[in-house]
């Protein structure tokens, strides 16, 4: 039984984290499969066609969740990096490292689905629309962050460097985003989901979309947990090897 824990920093101990992760990964896996298949099947087969966009509107059920994740994973990495820099918890650093690849993939698939969707609606696969440009910028910073881990050996120093890179990257990503927005407003519609009910898309799309977003978030969390677990075990192997070889 998982004991009630006094504070969240207990997760920072890799072993505590491992034991908890081992327990919750199966639940997450099952939940992910259920929500994702429910949302996608509902979205794909049981939604009406948009009067203007035809059936191509169904791409929304992957486009929006992946785009949502692409941005929020970067925020998560930023938070994790800051936590690592301030409180030096290894799990936090490893979480940032493990999330980067998933974030990159999410950015890529958001761009891909966006391009496919853009062709019938706007008549072009790619335009230098502010939001698309923002995603291109995001992609560059993901690549930069990943390349620092690719080229250098794992150590606390590289952790510090990559965390700073993440912080600097997010500052400049924001700046570039506003630099882009300064000049034009672009083709994209406003946010699809907001608390203001009037702006929301139709209910028929709303619920499956929400389920899809939850499904993708769960997918991300499951993958993230597994990746963190592997990274921790990799560190363990390294330490054991070092100890054995002297």
């Amino acid at each position, binding site marked *: 039984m998982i004991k009630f824990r006094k504070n969240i920093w207990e997760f920072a101990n*890799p072993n505590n984290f491992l034991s908890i992760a081992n327990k919750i990964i199966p639940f997450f896996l099952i939940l992910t499969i259920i929500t994702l298949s429910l949302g996608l099947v509902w979205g794909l087969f049981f939604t009406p066609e948009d009067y203007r966009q035809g059936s191509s509107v169904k791409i929304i059920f992957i486009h929006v969740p992946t785009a949502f994740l692409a941005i929020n994973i970067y925020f998560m990495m930023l938070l994790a990096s800051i936590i690592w820099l301030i409180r030096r918890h290894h799990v936090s650093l490893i979480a940032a490292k493990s999330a980067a690849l998933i974030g990159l993939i999410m950015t890529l698939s958001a761009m891909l689905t966006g391009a496919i969707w853009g062709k019938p609606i706007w008549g072009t696969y790619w335009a230098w629309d502010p939001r698309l440009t923002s995603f291109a910028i995001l992609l560059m910073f993901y690549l930069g962050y990943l390349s620092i881990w690719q080229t250098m050996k794992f150590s606390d120093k590289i952790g510090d460097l990559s965390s700073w890179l993440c912080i600097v990257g997010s500052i400049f990503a924001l700046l570039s985003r506003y630099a882009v927005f300064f000049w034009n407003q672009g083709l994209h519609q406003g946010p699809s989901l907001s608390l203001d009910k009037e702006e929301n898309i139709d209910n028929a799309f709303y619920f499956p979309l929400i389920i899809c977003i939850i499904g993708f978030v769960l997918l991300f969390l499951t993958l993230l947990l597994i990746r963190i677990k592997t990274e921790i075990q990799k560190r363990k192997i390294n330490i054991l090897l070092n100890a054995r070889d002297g």
Partner: protein
Amino acid sequence: MNLIGSSLSCKRDGKLIFSDLSFKIKSGDVCFIKGPNGSGKSTLLRLLAGFIKVWTGKVSLNNEDITNRNDIIYNNFFYIGHSNSLKNYLTVKQQIDFWEGISEKKYNFESDSFNLKKILNRRIYECSEGQKRRVGLSRLSIDDKKVLLLDEPTTSLDIENVSRLKNYLKDHQKKGGIAIVASHETFISSNNQDIILTLNPPKNRERDPFL
């Protein structure tokens, strides 16, 4: 003047380099650090010079706690590492000018402790390794600090120049300064008062959070 380190330990990249190191050095002492390769001699010097943060323990100078107090360290400590901090394309004279600019003190050409007069107009890349080391060491007499931290100062020096360095250190001793030297040889062996500090690898390793 005295320099006291009490139960110092240092961690680098998550690994404990040495632990529970204590020493007490009075003015006029020369302290030699001994130990096998990789035992943390250079790390200890860099720690005292303020590059590396002290993990646990305390360093105090004149009974004042100077652990991680870089401003005091700057004013009292001199550090020279393996590298000589030389720029290849400068002449020796320009290099010395540059250091004088940084420390706002002058090199004493009359006593010329490191015999540089002859090579003043030579470019650094034309110098031999021993000459480079001499130029590097000449920073000693430019800065003129109380505590000297020397990392392998005798590498590639010939006997004559080692004796010059000895003389310089003896002068420094007489003035009441402290020198801490990491070296394989105790080159001021005539004096029995030298302190010898032996570094051993830490025994009880800290439990790694990943195990």
